[in-house]
């Protein structure tokens, strides 16, 4: 976990549980229907790495990918 992290939400899998938004509000945004997408280009700012992993571990649809660059 030394490199930078990037997150990606699979819009086909996301069903709008919004668990990610609750656990990592700085990393995700919701659309008008409540479905999530990664903020910006998905780069995880330093200090929020744990939040990215936590969001991934709590997505019931396994829609969140965390990529170590």
């Amino acid at each position, binding site marked *: 976990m030394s490199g930078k992290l990037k997150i990606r939400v699979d819009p086909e899998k996301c*069903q*709008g*549980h*919004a*668990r990610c*938004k*609750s*656990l990592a509000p700085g990393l995700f945004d*919701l659309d*008008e*229907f*409540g479905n999530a997408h990664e903020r910006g280009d998905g780069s995880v700012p330093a200090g929020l790495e744990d939040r990215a992993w*936590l969001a991934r*571990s*709590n*997505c*019931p*649809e*396994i829609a969140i990918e965390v990529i170590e660059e």
Partner: protein
Amino acid sequence: MSDSASVIPEHPPVTDWINDFDHTDPRWTENPFPIWDALRAHSPVVHTERFLGCYLPTTYEAVKEIAYDTEHFSSRRVIVRDVRPEVIPSPPITSDPPAHKPAKQLLLPSFTPDAVKKLEPRVRAICNALIDEFVNDGRCDAAARYTKHIPVRTIAHMLGIPEEDGDLFIRWIHEILELGIKNNDLLMGAIHEMSAYFAGQIAQRKKSPTDDLVSTLMNAKDIDGQPLSDAHVVGSLRLLLIAGIDTTWSAIGSALWHLARTRSDCQRLIVEPALMPIAIEELLRAYSPVTMAREVTKETTVSGCPVKPGNMVLLSFPAANRDPAMFRDADKVVIDRKENRHAAFGLGIHRCVGSNLARMEITVAIEEWLKRIPDFRLDPAGRVTWSEGTVRGPRQLPILFGNAN
């Protein structure tokens, strides 16, 4: 339930859970967890001839397979009952693809986290008004005096219908979700009363429009740009009322029941309020209130087990959430559980449309209770009772406050 038990044909007691399960058996109602564990140890899918034939997936994986498979499993009937009369649509919960998505998208914007955040002050006021009524008594039946009224008043506020009609809504829901499993006349009567009630609300708004969820639905357009039929609007309103009340009532009740008998978790939430969102998710996992249903429409297999059309499926998200293959220490409440992909609000396209509302209500209800009544426990002289059927929660929850005895 006692008020009309005389007219309900009783089911014979279960002697063989593996081949003859019954989710209305009093032992299931009281404590379903060891039953699920035994069934899960036997097979990922079990079957009963009761309810005109019904499967129960017992593992997280089997529940997930069915929830994702709209080709072989239809949502047109969402309650497992003794009879299978005409289908009464309440879109989108009873909708299958392709009708499901547009019907759900009409409702979703009203239930996003930001949208429900606006209702939060109102829910805090509702909770405090309820607590005011019993806080000085030293005790209360928290199910009858607290948990029951929070979702009723919240959904009434959202729909723009009188909060005073709450008792009526509670009776309809009891007749549909509990008594209706075995008594079709009561169920149909309640549905027709409810439909007439909402038809009246729609008629009023045609004369004088309002700014509430009923009007939002009346003004909504379908995918062809046409206004929704009154029948569609009434069906969706029926759904919001049925699905929004005793589910959340149950979740708040189970959370309070757990905290009343687990002082350490309670203390921790008081000193560490930031833990609340994670704790609420864990209580939702361990005491998931809602079991859904599907109807098998085509022959297939689930986790290797053959399933045949003509049968219903009891889609037990609560049993999935207790599967040790998915959750470490699945039978324990771990109040700070870090990895928790629980399915309390369903999986796949039918994810509960009101999940953000429910979470907000549960969180606020527990927060306000802990602020006003930080020291409480189950009344050893009282008895906790649980609802029968596919929504599980305490219906009688006697609690003592502070030093009362």
